């Protein structure tokens, strides 16, 4: 599935027919395993870097941040971050990012929220497709980019994302405080995504391997949507003009974003 600025998805909570078991509220807040296969559009990244080189807004660092899946607010989720370092080299990282405030209970001050990330250096020029597993268990987030590397970071006092909307292909479809819609604020992703699976229960290594090697076999085995608290599972093989089909049984078919859905 090709995603771009005019084609992002919302994990919607419009359960019009009472079929949903696991709702978006718990996504990324509760423990989870998320699998995603994607390929970035490098031309798009380099074009954005080029445009930003001379933009005073990027005087301290020229970067492009693209969100594969995430929640809005102080954005959290899986990002592909590209920046030009001090030696003028372009570097790419696949990173899971979140905001936390360890002392919130004693000092509830949002200005003291801090950003954290688990990050793996990648080289899209050489790598092609990425198979990424993100896990969050026992207050530890691990990002594993298969065949490349992994990173684990502790979580301490994740801020409240329960009211946030959950997105695929951006960190938000909403405009910024000035009402502007732009790549930087929305972290729009341009590229292809061909598999996405998210659940709260841990997944066996065999099933993770199967998901990446032969998703239809995993799908056809069937899912325990209740027991594994699965949110969504799709390889984007079946889509309509409005939705991408969720095979998990949770009915969380991705909804092609249109501002009408949340008006």
């Amino acid at each position, binding site marked *: 599935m090709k995603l771009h600025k005019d084609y992002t998805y919302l994990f919607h909570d419009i359960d019009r*027919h009472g*079929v949903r078991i696991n709702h978006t509220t718990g996504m990324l807040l509760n423990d989870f395993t998320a699998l995603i296969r994607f390929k970035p559009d490098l031309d798009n990244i380099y074009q954005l870097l080029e445009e930003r080189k001379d933009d005073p807004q990027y005087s301290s660092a020229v970067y492009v941040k693209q969100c594969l899946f995430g929640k809005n607010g102080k954005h959290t989720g899986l990002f592909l971050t590209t920046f030009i370092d001090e030696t003028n080299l372009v570097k790419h990282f696949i990173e899971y990012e979140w905001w936390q405030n360890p002392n919130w209970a004693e000092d509830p001050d949002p200005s003291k929220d801090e950003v954290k990330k688990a990050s793996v250096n990648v080289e899209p020029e050489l790598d092609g497709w990425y198979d990424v597993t993100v896990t969050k268990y026992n207050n530890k987030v691990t990002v594993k980019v298969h065949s490349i590397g992994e990173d684990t970071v502790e979580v301490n006092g994740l801020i409240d994302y329960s009211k946030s909307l959950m997105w695929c292909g951006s960190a938000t479809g909403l405009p910024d405080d000035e009402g502007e819609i732009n790549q930087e604020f929305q972290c729009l992703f341009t590229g292809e995504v061909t598999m996405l699976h998210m659940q709260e229960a841990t997944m066996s290594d065999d099933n993770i391997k199967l998901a990446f090697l032969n998703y239809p076999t995993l799908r056809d085995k069937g899912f325990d949507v209740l027991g594994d608290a699965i949110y969504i599972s799709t390889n984007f093989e079946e889509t*309509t003009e409005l939705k991408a089909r969720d095979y998990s*049984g949770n009915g969380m078919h991705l909804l092609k974003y249109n501002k009408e859905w949340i008006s």
Partner: protein
Amino acid sequence: MIGTKKSALDLKKEQTRILLGNHDYNLTKKKLDSVGCGMCLAKWTQTTIHLHMGQTHSCHHPATHKIPLHELKRNPSALHNTKFKKMKRKEMLEGKRPAECDYCWNVEDNSPQFSDRVFKSNESWSKPYFDEIKELGWREDYNPKYVEVSFSNLCNFKCSYCGPSFSSKWVEEAKKHGPYPTQDNFNDLNALKSDGKMPIHHTEHNPYVEAFWKWWPDLYRDLHTFRITGGEPLLSKDTWKILDYIIEEKNPNKKLNLAINSNLGIPDNLIDRLIEKIQRIEDDGRVNEFIIFTSVDAWGKRAEYIRNGLEFNRFWDNMNKILTKCPRVNITVMSTFNALSITSYKPLVDGIYKLKKEYGSTDRYWVSAVFLDSSYLRHPIHQTIQVLPEGEFAPILWDTVLYMDYLGIPKFDHQLIGYSDVEVQKIKRTYDWMTSKFKDPEAILRQQRDFGRYFKAHDERRGTDFCKTFPELEEFYQFTQAIQI
């Protein structure tokens, strides 16, 4: 003391209704109750008339009753305004609850929900007439606004759950083979005869049809909705006469919502003739809307087994043909979800979605060219989904619910193509009914035995092969053959 308790309960129900509900329904209920607690406008405004059996009822909940021929002699509108019905109207106007309307009284007495008397009285074919009906004496005749008629039971199909009342093919089979060997002697002609529901053969003179045509010019002027059912209506000359009347009428009732049921399995020349008539009616704007109601309950050969006489591909081609050649018309596919529907309903959902995509247009009376109206079969019980082993088959139905939800529109918007909330909810309701906890295992076992007996006899009589058509149900079929009670 009892009186106090009852009024407290009524108050609670009233409050809950207000909380649950729509302001409009509350107002309608209050107006009805101001006349009497049993008042329902449908007793005047709505009627179904089975001309081929001489039976009528207003609202589908009360049983049909016989139309006395002697009443028709003086008054053809007695097809609807029977003395029997007038006595029920009298009860309503005098603050009583007619016993035949117990479906609604059960709802009202046992839940905070609005009953159908409120919904039906709130319809656009009822609500505007409240004042005139209230002032009307119970003896007065009243022209209904929503009329369903069947002229004949002549039909080229004999669907597994249907019967002689609505299919001449079924009459032929029942005459040849007698009733099916189920505990209720399914489709026993003698039972029909004793109930006075034996259809008049389509070649015989039918005094009810004769009365209808006397009444029609007057009735037509007042109609909001007119729906022709059957049998197969397009095999009846009276259906064509209706269409020609509308085409030729100098001053047509342009507010009329016209609907015709058809199995769309009739000869090609009749399909072409129907298209030609629709085009003439559409082009001249002679009706407010024209909807064809057709039926299919499964996909491919499975659908053909259920609806004996159906050629599935030709049926589908005919839907495409009508939607292509009639740019305004809509088709509603009425699906009677039964035990044999479950394993191939998903491709049907998919197929109808594709029709919606291909033919959806703002030029049509309704933007969605096709609607899928799924209702679960209740009778005969032995063919309902409740006879199937739930553990094995309910997940298949749930998968269909999820698939339909996937193809559903995310909000009500005429421009969006996909399944509406109502369409999805009706299949969800079917699942809920299948998995309902209130089932009597012994009764189910008896019905499963009837399922086995019925389809064994079906294959013998009709030369069909259940297990070949439904290999996924073979194990269950074999189980039903072995049931000993």
